[in-house]
């Protein structure tokens, strides 16, 4: 380790010269008519789809009537998943952090296999509405439900900061610098507010159904924009012809050893810790888990995971190629990417857009690439905010505070919490502490520390009980906060320097903390469950039903089957 970056947010990458403003240098920031029309047209399309599929009842709002099929759900998984961190942040990390940047490629794809073999079909059989629903019902505890709901909310918040940053950076290219509009704010900050307002507006109009329909459209836009951008940049610069995903290999030698040499900017340990954390985070993210409640059957849950992973791989095979092209273009046209001063982090965050711009491609074309980035961010924020708001409205409000809540009240609370999340995210994104990918990584560490252990143990060991879950989740939350306080909080306090403890940052980095927290949370949950009473027989039967290979009705949950006592399996006709 050569140090801990505050600006890049990736431990091991020494901070580049601090920029007062987040305006990315060498990006052509000005109002551009055709790209602006493209982006606004795209946003109008999302709103129209959201409006057409707007919802009035909660079943539709949270799980889309459990009617989504294989490919559509796969696309939704892909769109939900591929955020500004995938579209922008990953290429940025690969360009700046070299071999270490590949942790995002590995961590954000391979986790789906774990999700598939251990959780996907079982989750469909469990068949509730939200991730906290599982925790609350499985462990028979409203406290556990509340902790899970708060965690879900927190994940949505931390994760969305990175998205807001990505949208704003790309928005600068398209709409220009409106820093004069609001006193005290610069162009980047005005753009954060503008983009978040649009996202929240569309989300409050439509719920999960609109969001799912939208996500298939958003996936198409983002993957086409990214791939076409990559092919054209590769072709026009003579880097590649038909398979840039493999052809960029020839370029690696010319990019400087910083691009590919292993363990220069980060240790082997950090590499493993980050990858592990991203993998278990993948399997614990509420907005990912909830996608399995929305499908028609458990077989669809499995195959849509395969489709989702394929759709995700299309982008993840391509991002390193984009990073390689961008790095070379930057070195040729601006200045050497590595060394002093090197590429500034704000520039690296838009390297995908920058690569298209530096290739002298027409403005409308760069606009398409930029629009893809915005689509990616909006789709993910949609998924996150739906998960976060359902945690508040369904899990805390309806299940704990007001059990007689009408549908109208629930939806109102849901919409209000989307607005609240939007405001919080906007404020935090005005001066983000880290890079897009790192911000998202913190959310993964949280999901991997608190939610994944509960889902995994809860689903695969019927004797896990309430006390175990409460102890485990509390441990997870506390342990996750330690490196966050060590590394991230000081960046918001001017008198402190991050990290507070370099040793802690080395062995328990904020971005990879789940490697340490997960085994501890597992142990605590299991030990506490063993020394306390077994869970009720009813709960055990629900767990067993989640693993039974018997097909279930489309609208059924494991709880229904068990509670029916076997009298009938007629699905509710709602």
């Amino acid at each position, binding site marked *: 380790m050569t140090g801990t970056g505050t600006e890049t947010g990736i431990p091991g990458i020494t901070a580049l010269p601090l920029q007062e403003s987040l305006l990315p240098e060498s990006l052509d920031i000005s109002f551009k008519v055709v790209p602006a029309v493209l982006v606004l047209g795209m946003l109008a399309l999302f709103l129209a789809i959201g409006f057409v599929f707007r919802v009035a009842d909660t079943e539709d709002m949270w799980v889309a009537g459990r009617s989504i099929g294989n490919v559509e759900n796969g696309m939704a998984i892909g769109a939900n998943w591929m955020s500004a961190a995938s579209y922008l942040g990953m290429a940025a990390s690969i360009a700046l952090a070299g071999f270490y940047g590949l942790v995002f490629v590995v961590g954000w794809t391979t986790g789906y296999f774990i999700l598939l073999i251990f959780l996907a079909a079982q989750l469909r059989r469990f068949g509730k509405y939200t991730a906290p629903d599982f925790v609350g019902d499985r462990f028979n505890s409203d406290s556990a439900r509340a902790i899970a709901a708060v965690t879900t909310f927190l994940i949505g918040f931390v994760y969305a900061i990175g998205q807001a940053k990505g949208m704003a950076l790309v928005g600068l290219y398209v709409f220009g610098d409106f820093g004069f509009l609001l006193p005290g704010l610069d162009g980047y900050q005005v753009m954060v507010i503008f983009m978040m307002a649009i996202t929240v507006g569309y989300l409050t109009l439509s719920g999960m159904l609109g969001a799912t329909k939208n996500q298939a459209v958003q996936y198409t836009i983002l993957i086409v924009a990214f791939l076409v951008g990559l092919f054209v940049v590769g072709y026009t610069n003579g880097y590649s012809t038909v398979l840039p995903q493999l052809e960029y290999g020839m370029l690696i030698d010319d990019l400087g050893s910083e691009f590919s040499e292993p363990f220069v900017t980060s240790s082997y340990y950090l590499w493993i810790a980050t990858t592990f954390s991203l993998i278990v985070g993948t399997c614990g993210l509420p907005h990912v888990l909830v996608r399995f409640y929305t499908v028609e059957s458990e077989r669809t849950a499995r195959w849509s995971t395969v489709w989702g992973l*394929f759709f995700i791989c299309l982008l*993840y095979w391509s991002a390193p190629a984009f990073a390689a092209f961008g790095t070379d273009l930057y070195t040729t046209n601006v200045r050497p990417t590595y060394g002093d001063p090197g590429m500034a982090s704000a520039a690296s965050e838009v390297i995908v857009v920058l690569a298209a711009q530096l290739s002298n491609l027409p403005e409308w074309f760069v606009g398409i690439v930029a629009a893809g980035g915005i689509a990616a961010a909006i789709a993910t924020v949609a998924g996150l905010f739906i998960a976060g708001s359902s945690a508040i409205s369904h899990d805390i409000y309806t299940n704990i505070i007001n059990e007689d809540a009408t549908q109208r009240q629930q939806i109102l609370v849901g919409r209000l919490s989307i607005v609240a999340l939007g405001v919080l995210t906007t404020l935090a994104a005005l001066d983000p502490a880290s890079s897009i990918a790192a911000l998202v990584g913190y959310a993964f560490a949280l999901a991997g520390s608190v939610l994944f252990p509960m889902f995994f143990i809860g689903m695969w060991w019927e004797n896990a009980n309430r006390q175990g879950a409460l102890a485990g989740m509390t441990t997870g939350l506390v342990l996750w906060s330690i490196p966050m306080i060590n590394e991230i909080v000081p960046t918001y306090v001017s008198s402190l320097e991050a990290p507070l403890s370099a040793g802690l940052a080395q062995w328990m980095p904020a971005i990879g903390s789940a490697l340490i927290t997960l085994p501890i949370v597992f142990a605590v949950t299991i030990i506490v469950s063993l020394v306390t009473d077994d869970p009720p*027989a009813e709960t*055990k039967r629900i767990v067993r039903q989640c693993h*039974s*290979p018997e097909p279930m009705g489309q609208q059924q949950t494991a709880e229904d089957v068990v509670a*029916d006592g076997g009298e009938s399996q007629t699905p509710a006709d709602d």
Partner: protein
Amino acid sequence: MRDNNTQDSDDELETDGGVAGGHGQAHRDTDYLNQEVNLLKPSTPFMRDHLRVVWTGFVIWVVAVFGPVTLTYLATDAMTTQMPVLGFPWHYFLVAFGAPTSALLLSVWYSRKRDALDEKYGIDHTTPEGTEHGGATAADGGVDE
């Protein structure tokens, strides 16, 4: 497990009559709601078969995901040599391309295996709301407690 066939399972045998072989029989004789779920101690024939697939996939996955980077750490010089044709350093290719692709191929493999298991045990997902087949679950679920 065969030791459960004391329950009144007559009607299930009729409704599922088409399934041949001992596995389908074992499936119909299993009362899934009364078999413990424990990742390390599978209690039904189906779960034993399923977990064999799961653990096989998991081990390959661990090797594919963490193997290349560990090898790179242990044998840096060998792993950073250039690949023929593609020009990548080996470690870069195995991590950036190999790991995600392995996860995708493993996922296809697992899903096909799981479908084959369903077939082996005579489980049909095409009629998730079917009443007859569902009746078997219900009959099982109703036994004791």
